[in-house]
């Protein structure tokens, strides 16, 4: 417990951590201020007009769907024969759409919390992932490089305990910061929606969906922090973690993807870590692959050409990667000569 308290004090005293917290606050303030400046409370007339437009849009979608069915049944009036319809009418069935037009879609200059909360949360999670990775890498990297770890080991010659206390302190601190920041962030935008915009339809489904994204985002932040910590421990330096990520992104995500496309490899996206990150965060990610439909369309059948990655296998991949690297970092640190 004493070790964790000491590590907490060291972590918060780091200039880099302080800088990242300031940057987080700054990004938050800028986003909130611009949102506030660009939004206004809609008048009754604006609301009425928007609702009418939304109703009209929904009716138009329904009409288009019915026309599609009529064409399929051969009952479409000749006057409508010029219209475009998909082969499969279910594609434009309003009931099967992710969402239908609502009044908020027709209120320009009005911030709608219900509509914007999720994209805003994704932005915050992206920042927190970066924050966790950089803080995790610099926290141990700088200490290994400067001799701080050696100092500590002269006091507590238990390597696993010292490294474990550092990792635990890091993860606990990052999680507490991330949860606090995201709650304050969402609460601020909720207040903006209530006072200078539109709250929107905040149903149980909305909060459940937002909570799921938030929860998955927090897990991702923790994984990124542990990953930065592990790579910097293995490489003895903060820059090892930054270099490893940059090299991976350039060599595999860009170069590897290009090569896989050239050789026409099947489902290249499922070989990319970014796909699993996206799938974990959103719950499911869909990728197009032309090879899926080869053969299926020969008989004239319909084939979408998409395949999915869901959150469960994505979490497994991310856990295996982070867990493996963290275990390797502990194993190497246990035997390493500290000179």
């Amino acid at each position: 417990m004493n070790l964790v308290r000491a590590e907490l004090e060291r972590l918060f005293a780091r200039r880099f951590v302080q800088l990242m917290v300031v940057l987080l606050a700054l990004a938050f303030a800028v986003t909130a201020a611009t949102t506030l400046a660009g939004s206004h409370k809609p008048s009754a007339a604006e609301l009425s007009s928007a609702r009418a437009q939304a109703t009209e849009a929904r009716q138009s979608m329904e009409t288009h769907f019915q026309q599609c069915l009529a064409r399929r049944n051969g009952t479409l009036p000749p006057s409508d024969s010029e219209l475009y319809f998909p082969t499969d009418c279910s594609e434009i069935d309003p009931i099967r759409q992710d969402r239908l037009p609502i009044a908020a879609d027709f209120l320009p200059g009005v911030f709608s919390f219900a509509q914007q909360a999720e994209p805003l949360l994704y932005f915050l999670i992206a920042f927190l992932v970066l924050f966790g990775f950089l803080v995790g890498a610099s926290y141990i990297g700088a200490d290994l490089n400067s001799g701080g770890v050696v100092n500590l080991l002269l006091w507590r010659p238990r390597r696993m305990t010292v490294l474990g206390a550092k990792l635990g302190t890091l993860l606990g601190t990052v999680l507490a910061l991330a949860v606090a920041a995201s709650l304050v962030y969402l609460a601020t935008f909720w207040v903006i929606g209530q006072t200078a915009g539109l709250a929107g339809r905040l149903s149980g489904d909305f909060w459940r969906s937002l909570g799921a994204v938030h929860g998955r985002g927090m897990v991702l932040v923790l994984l990124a922090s542990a990953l930065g910590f592990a790579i910097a421990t293995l490489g003895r330096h903060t820059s090892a973690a930054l270099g490893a990520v940059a090299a991976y992104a350039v060599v595999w995500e860009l170069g590897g993807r290009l090569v896989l496309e050239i050789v026409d490899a099947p489902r290249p996206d499922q070989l990319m870590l970014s796909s699993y990150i996206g799938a974990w965060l959103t719950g499911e990610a869909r990728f197009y692959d032309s090879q899926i439909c080869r053969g299926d369309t020969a008989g004239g059948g319909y084939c979408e050409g998409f395949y999915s990655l869901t959150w469960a296998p994505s979490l497994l991949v991310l856990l295996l990667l982070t867990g493996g690297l963290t275990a390797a970092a502990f194993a190497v640190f246990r035997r390493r000569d500290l000179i």
Partner: protein
Amino acid sequence: MSAVIEIEGLRKTFHSLRNGRRVAVDGFDLLVETGQIHGFLGPNGSGKTTTLRALLGLVRADSGRMAVLGEPSPQLLPRVAGRVGAIVESPQFFGNFTGHRTLRLLARAGGVPTSRVDEVLELVGLHDRGDERVKAYSLGMKQRLAVASALLKDPQLLILDEPANGLDPAGIREMRDLMRSLAAAGVTVLVSSHILAEIQLICDHVTIISRGRRVAAGRVDEVLAGHDRHEFLVRVAEPERAAELLRAAELTATVDGGTLVVGGATDATVISKLLGEQGLWVGELTPLRPDLESVFLELTGAGQPWVPRQVDDSALPPGGQGDAVIDLERGVDA
């Protein structure tokens, strides 16, 4: 006296892709007993710091046995870590912390009462500068802070690697007084240093390492006595004639300007009598006693004047392969 530090047959090899394999410590032995102020000497790259790091569990030894305060190290080092204060090379501290905060954090991590922080800052002369940031400290002040960190635990054993680094003459003297007072209070001190005169002044025992092997060990006065050639400096009016007379008496005599260096005499009176009987009156007759520096340079092969010495040029122990070392307490090890 009981052993506080025991090292037997310590061996450590470093491997790197660029430089290949390098033996840093090669079958090294060290024995430090309770209450000693034990000097640990060796040229640059001789294996001093590697030995201390291995002892403190910072590097893994290839082979050998080590024990600290009776506990095998590094396996059971945590059991005694609370009684061992150590600095290895120049410790790096967090520049944005004050000296006081640095020590408070270490005290907290080690379960030491934070009230001890002020005491040790006072001891090392940093009491009035404890609230300044470490990055504003001079090298000497950082070194004092390092020593303060080692003293925090009120240790029974203090291991100091080059504690005088960066200290001014007054600071070196204060460090010397501090070590003496600690030893008087029953603390065993192992100190490595390049300042041989300091070691000779402070330490009662010494171990000298060269190219990873022990080349001398024992009480400082006995190590020096082991290298005493029983030579005398003689100032006389006719040095050439005096030299002939002494050689005729089966003594060695070398003329050096207006003086003679005479060897082989068991007693100064022999020289005085021999020359006096021939009407040569001695103006000065001084025994030439070796100091630690001359012994160190002789043992480590670092004494060639005007020849740039490379770090790996240090001498091997007698016997070429280091099979025999001078140990005045145990005799000559085979």
